[in-house]
């Protein structure tokens, strides 16, 4: 009798597959387990995608995009690799600090939905509105006939307090579009991955189904 036990490391990076007995099609088992892991991750990302945007903006579909790039990367008789082929995922999974690269001194963090996913120059291209800074306040503003702000703290979601050097009358004709930051600290999202117990149960089920099919085909007589 063959049995397969699946264990998952606490950091979810490695799925251990312990087999008692001989499985002739070992690469097949690895392929099927890897595909099930990919499917569980895709389902988890899709479920996260259904949650409302934290800022009340329309959704970018970030988690759904992750589901689209999650797939089995390679399979051999020794093992398999599943990848989430998107560099943006690691920061959500592990947390970290984002710093500007190259010659850029600041990160530009969008404060309005219209600016999301666009660099400041693309925003200017799209809207035809020029962005500018005022003094040492680390914000990129645009001029508005209406829709300016009287409270920079509110308009920047607490990122910038004060701004009293800008007169109130002027502020009411301004809208901060980007916050400029030398770095941004991102906390690890504890729900970025499914619970290990969920994955263990799913993969154990898949291993069991695989063995059942192999026995039925007679390719792996017990």
């Amino acid at each position, binding site marked *: 009798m063959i049995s397969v036990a699946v264990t998952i490391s606490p950091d979810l990076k490695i799925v251990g597959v312990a087999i008692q007995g001989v499985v002739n099609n070992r690469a*097949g088992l690895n392929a099927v387990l890897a595909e099930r892991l990919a499917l569980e991750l895709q389902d988890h990302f899709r479920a996260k995608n259904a949650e409302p945007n934290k800022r009340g903006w329309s959704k970018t*579909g970030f988690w759904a995009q992750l589901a689209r*790039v999650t797939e089995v990367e390679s399979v051999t008789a020794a093992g*398999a690799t599943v990848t989430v082929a998107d560099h943006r995922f690691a920061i959500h999974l592990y947390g970290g600090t984002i710093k500007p690269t190259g010659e*850029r001194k600041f990160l530009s963090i969008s404060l309005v939905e219209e600016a999301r996913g666009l660099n400041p120059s693309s925003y200017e291209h799209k809207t035809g509105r020029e962005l500018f800074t005022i003094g040492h306040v680390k914000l990129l503003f645009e001029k508005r006939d209406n829709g300016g702000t009287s409270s920079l703290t509110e308009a920047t979601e607490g990122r910038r307090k004060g701004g009293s050097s800008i007169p109130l009358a002027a502020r009411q004709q301004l809208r901060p579009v980007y916050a400029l930051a030398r770095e941004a600290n991102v906390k690890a999202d504890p729900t970025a991955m499914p619970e290990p117990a969920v994955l263990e149960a799913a993969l154990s089920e898949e291993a069991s189904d695989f063995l059942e099919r192999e026995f039925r085909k007679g390719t792996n007589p017990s």
Partner: protein
Amino acid sequence: MIDFTTAKPLKEAVDSLGKRSPLGLALSSKEIEGLPVELRQRSIFAARVESERILAEVKRRIMQRVKLERDKVEAGGRVMERGRFIQEMQGLLEEMGYRPDPGKEGSLQDLSSAGRLGLIWQMQLDMAHGHAKWKTAMNPDILEAFPAQELVRDFARVERRDWPQIWKDNGGVFYGEPGPDYPGAPGRMIALMTDPIWAKISRFGVPWPPFDWGSGMGLRKVRRRDAEKLGLLDPEDVMIPAESPTKPNREWTVAETDRGEAWQALMDKPFNDGMQASAAGLEPAQIQRTLDAFPDQVTHDPQANVFLWSALARREREEERERARFAAEEDGKEEDDA
């Protein structure tokens, strides 16, 4: 042992995009749809973008993203992302003197608009990853364990196409209770991985998403056990991989040994050379338009009524041009010497 990583690209996605050649076309998106799917699958193009330099720049950046490559450290070590892609392409287009047609500024007909460039970015990425997933799904063991898939909504859209109707119109069968995406549908839109329905519902004629311009629909694999419960196949049925994206299997019970060979043949298949595409059903004017659109790569065999795609023919023509240019330069030199 199964490893999980966030740092490895999908090799098949890299291959899929890497083998596409930039092709400048004066055709509209509607006219492009009329081209044989085999040709579209092997080229990178955008409606009414004739400059192959622009397309090569698009490809280079999307390739960097699919490969998950960073710039060199001395260049800042940046990754490629949507915002950067849009910004750099806008800069390039400006440098090239691109101007949208009057009245089209900012619209999807404006190549430099964030909306159009964002659409190109997403479509090309999704096409590459969709192709990669399809190839993985054709692994015989994976196909055996996950023989079917469901059409599901991945991205919310303000204007939604009536996919249950499209499904029905193309002969799709509904299974079980309707899913959350389309609660009014007669059931869930599920079919075997190798069913012709997937290519039929696609505007681009391939069995993976995106299924239409800007479509938010995607695919979710269905496990064997669930597919059997729904009645899509019986326990004794054996799935065989499709020969190619455009040749789905209608019969899926064959000898076990054939499955591995068919899959290997699919994976080994050269992408461009010697490829044929049927021209059956195309009017002479449409055939001519196709030849005009791909002047260096495609010929038409009137007897067999097929298009022949030849990378070799292209190379030969390029070499011929190079020789002619060289000869002209040599002639010029001789005149100068004289």
